[in-house]
């Protein structure tokens, strides 16, 4: 390698004016032409275009280039593109460096062409210095587990699990609550086909439980998580249910227990018992004893006998998987006391309305009273304005709510109920516009409120009085007596701080999980092998959730259907001849990737387990002897880049 003569090709991109409008690309080429080892230096209109890529390949062959630099846009966009190009030219793809002269130069310095040109030259020089000291690297080939962990047993998790198991992959589905289905079974009927939420779940579950390559853990949580793409190790803790028999066997006995606890399945509209089976058809059919709320264990023992086992202990299972899908879902926004009248008799949320209708078998009654008029107030808990920096508000639109409210109002209107819609914008996007149209046609009354003057809800006799200024009638103040006010609440992401910590995946300003690229990589996280699906990434409806679940499953399949995956070779490596066994690297490594190993003929020195090394470089900074360095970014390379970039630029 040291004998090899350096022959470097440098390509400076115009980016169709994005760069060349602000950077004198020709001058950049001139300035680096004389750099030692530079054999080809060119400017190109679109370096990423196929023809330019072919030009690079031809140059490599024609001029025997052994290093390539492209100076163009951010490496986030095209570094991989050009590594591929260099590879196609027959070179090792890591003998390449990508200089960012667009985001870091031309676009940031549109005010000074000279300054931008000088900076571009420094960046390109640094890149040349990098490749001058680059060594060929090989990707690390890693055997991958043909198994996937799906976290969350709502429809997203169920769909993903089913898709993956159909390809023959082993799937582990972990649900935190005692029953599968997530939020969907709570829905009375869903648009556009009017199916019951519980039926949607039942269909998915019944297909899933038939499969022998799927393991389902309910009442279970992730306890530990380690490893890397292709090879994750997970510990799952399954909490006891304390009940050993199916619901049907003890159904009658459970009925004898008193209703004690607000039923979360019905959003507190009803009470439930300490032994709990939320709805007919819930899976698994084994009820759960809510020991935290149980005041009288003895009565239960007496009543249920052998069906109950208080000696049950949490169990831990250890799993090895190649990829992980996170589908932890959402919670409905819970209005604050007094927010749009919440807390008053007759003011419910949209999810509560679903429960009311389901409990009434489609008929809407509140405390036995018939309902004739319903007002829907939109954007509750969505599109909120921030009044101070610290305040946590939901600035986002929750996407599904207009559609959902419109659908359920059309069901109500079929029963002769009058509906009012107190809205900001009706966002029944796509085909859902039809539902809006239908509600309008049936006589739904639409009132647009100003976000700064939200409607007020007061009690008047046994009715509610909704006071609002209507923008559609030039600000007329309206007073509408109604029986029921439905707050059309948005979604907030389910809070799972422990899980986030374990998986090291991050959330955005809206507190939903962030995808690695919002446009083109919507189900991938920054951590290789961990994918996100459904409403934990952004508010979405059932249909959209199912699509995103399949898309996440697809990504997981690209990892786990293969026998071997290739990892980037940017890992730490120890030169045992220099290592003085200070152990500082071992102390600082957060991944426990560095161990002590006996090297033949040298003795005990530090050693990096490359499969575990994430390539952060923390060890590099603390090594007293520079024995540990990062492949692909050695200390020599960093010094060379500093030196090259620090040289004076004369234009």
């Amino acid at each position, binding site marked *: 390698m040291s004998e090899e003569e350096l022959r470097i090709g440098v390509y400076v991109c115009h980016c*169709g*004016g*994005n760069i060349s409008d602000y950077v004198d690309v020709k001058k950049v080429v001139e300035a680096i032409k004389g750099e030692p080892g530079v054999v080809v230096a060119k400017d190109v209109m*679109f370096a*990423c*275009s*196929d*023809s330019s*890529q072919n030009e690079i390949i031809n140059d490599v062959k024609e001029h025997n280039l052994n290093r390539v630099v492209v100076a163009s846009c951010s490496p986030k*966009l*095209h570094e*991989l593109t050009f590594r*591929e190009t260099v590879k196609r030219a027959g070179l090792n793809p890591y003998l390449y460096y990508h200089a960012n002269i667009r985001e870091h130069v031309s676009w940031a310095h549109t005010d000074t062409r000279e300054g931008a040109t000088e900076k571009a030259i420094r960046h390109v020089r640094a890149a040349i210095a990098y490749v001058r000291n680059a060594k060929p690297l090989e990707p690390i080939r890693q055997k991958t587990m043909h198994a996937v962990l799906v976290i969350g047993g709502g429809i997203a998790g169920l*769909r993903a699990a089913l*898709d993956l198991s*159909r*390809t*023959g992959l082993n799937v582990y589905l972990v649900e935190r609550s005692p029953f599968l289905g997530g939020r969907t079974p709570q829905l009375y009927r*869903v648009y*556009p*086909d009017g199916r019951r939420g519980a039926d*949607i779940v039942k269909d998915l579950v019944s297909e899933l439980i038939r499969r022998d*390559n799927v393991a389902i853990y309910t009442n279970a949580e992730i306890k530990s998580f380690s490893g890397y793409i292709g090879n994750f190790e997970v510990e799952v803790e399954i909490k006891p249910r304390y009940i050993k028999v199916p619901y049907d066997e003890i159904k009658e006995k459970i009925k004898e227990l008193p209703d004690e606890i607000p039923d979360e399945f019905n959003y507190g509209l009803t009470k439930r018992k300490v032994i709990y089976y939320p709805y007919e058809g819930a899976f698994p059919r084994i009820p759960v004893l809510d020991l935290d709320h149980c005041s009288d264990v003895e009565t239960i023992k007496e009543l249920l006998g052998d069906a109950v086992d208080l000696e049950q202990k949490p169990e831990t299972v250890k799993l090895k998987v190649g990829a992980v899908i996170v589908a932890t879902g959402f919670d409905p926004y819970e209005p604050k006391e007094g927010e749009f009248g919440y807390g008053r008799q007759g003011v419910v949320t949209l999810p509560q309305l679903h429960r009311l209708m389901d409990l009434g078998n489609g008929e809407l009654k509140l405390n036995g009273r018939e309902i004739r008029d319903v007002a829907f107030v939109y954007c509750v808990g969505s*599109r909120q304005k921030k009044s101070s920096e610290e305040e946590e508000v939901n*600035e986002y*639109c929750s*996407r599904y709510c207009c559609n959902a409210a419109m659908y359920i109002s059309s069901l109500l209107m079929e029963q002769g109920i009058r509906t009012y819609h107190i809205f900001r*914008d009706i966002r*029944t996007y*796509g*085909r*859902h*516009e*039809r539902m809006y149209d239908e509600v309008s046609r049936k006589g739904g009354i639409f009132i*647009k409120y100003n976000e700064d003057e939200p409607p007020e809800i007061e009690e008047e006799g046994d009715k509610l009085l909704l006071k609002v200024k209507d*923008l*559609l009638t*030039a600000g007329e103040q309206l007073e509408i007596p109604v029986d029921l006010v439905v707050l059309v609440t948005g979604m907030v992401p389910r809070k799972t701080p422990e899980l986030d910590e374990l998986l090291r995946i991050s959330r955005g300003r*809206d507190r*939903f999980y962030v995808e690695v690229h*919002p*446009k*083109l990589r*919507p*189900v991938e996280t920054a951590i290789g092998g961990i994918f996100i699906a459904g409403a934990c*990434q*952004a508010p979405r409806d*059932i*249909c*959209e959730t*199912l*699509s*995103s*679940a*399949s*898309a996440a499953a*697809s*990504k997981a399949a690209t990892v786990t*259907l*293969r026998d071997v995956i290739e990892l980037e070779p940017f890992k730490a490596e120890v030169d045992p001849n220099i290592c003085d066994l200070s152990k500082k690297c071992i102390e600082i490594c957060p991944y426990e990737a560095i161990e002590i190993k006996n090297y033949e003929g040298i003795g005990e020195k530090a050693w990096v387990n490359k499969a575990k090394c994430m390539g952060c470089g923390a060890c590099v900074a603390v090594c007293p002897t520079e024995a540990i360095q990062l492949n692909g970014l050695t200390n020599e390379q960093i010094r060379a880049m500093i030196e090259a970039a620090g040289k004076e630029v004369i234009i």
Partner: protein
Amino acid sequence: MSVKSWYERKYYGEIEDLPEEEYDVLVIGGGIAGIQAALDLGDMGFKVVLVEKEPSIGGFMYKLSKTFPTMDCASCIATPRMAQVFHHPMIDLLIYSEVEEIEKKGEGDFRVKVLEKPRFVDSSRCTGCGQCELACPVIVPHEYDWGLAGRKAVYIPFDTAVPRIAVVDLDHCIYCGQCERACPTEPPSIDFTQVPKIHHLKVGAIIIATGFHLFDARLKENYHFGEYPNVIHAMHMDRLLAPTRPYHAILRPSDGKEPNNIAYILCVGSRDKTVNNPNCSQICCMYSIKQAQLIMGALPLADVTIYYIDIRAFGKAFEEFYQQAKDMGIMLVKGRVAKIEQKENGDLIVWYEDIENGGKLCKAEHDLVVLSVGLLPNKEIANVFKGQKLEVDDVGWIKPVDENANPVETSIRGVFAAGTALGPKDIPDSVIEGGAAAMQCAAYLSEVRGRH
């Protein structure tokens, strides 16, 4: 042009019938949804053939300026994907080709006929230098720029095309031979001896990602699109704003003036039963707000007014993007536009119903009007299935067999759909469905082949 008219042409030789080739999956449509589906399947280890009818892959996205709400430059994020699919070892491309017939023989067994149209350019030799294009004497409107500027009868589709090589538009060729003489390769890459080829494919599953077409704004007669030169549609504006734009600046078509008072009219051809499209097109609000923001950046002194009915900023970070637009000073008027009139100097008078002020009829003057046109289905694909019916809805979008169970599965088992073939949607939703369709294909193939 339809497949049929390619058959009816005269060629140098007989149409070439190629022997059968076998693939796991056929993806129809090389837009962002089809590309995503092909890449995922290729990465899973399936052998994929991707058919694109245009002379370059990329679909619609490559024509865009930037993408909302992140303001990534569209071609910057799309071109790597295009290159990736082009070079993927598991993916073969049939570009400038159209699916003509699909017959299902059984589960996991589809027989497909694809017509590969001749480019009259040898793709192995052409370097994309553009000499032929300079030499060609014919100038016709360029589809890529929606006709804003011209192109030649032989042309490179666009700067970031994949593959970036020339194509001859036979409909506008005068057979003068200038291109062939100008071609610097040896022998010239221009090759009129090319004939159409029929590819016979045997595939296990199919993904339809055939996208959409724009609403024809001429049908809204009150807006005089196609008649008043300064009434353009929003995809025109996206081209004017793109880094690969046809003009050197943002100029209005009537006289090349830089506009300084621009109006957007939303819901043109959407939410409108008079043109048989009662659906909302889902993306127009956001692309209009995006363009308005870009205009404010490019023409800091310009006024931008958006006439809307509802602003549908419903996706991730859309609402925040919309609020940002309001803060930038973009004017939003809730109002339906009744008609547009043209003044002598090309300026336009917009008559609108001012909904938030009692619904009275008002007028405003603008020097450029942009129609935010809706999306409509490409209906041809439903006709290529022989003996099987691909269900579509009343507008013509492909209808999932059960959208609350498996939203990308069509009425024909083994045939899946993704992206705007299923209905209007934005880029991330199209990418998601591309992935979802890939997953469903993989699951379907594993099952019918008995792997599980």
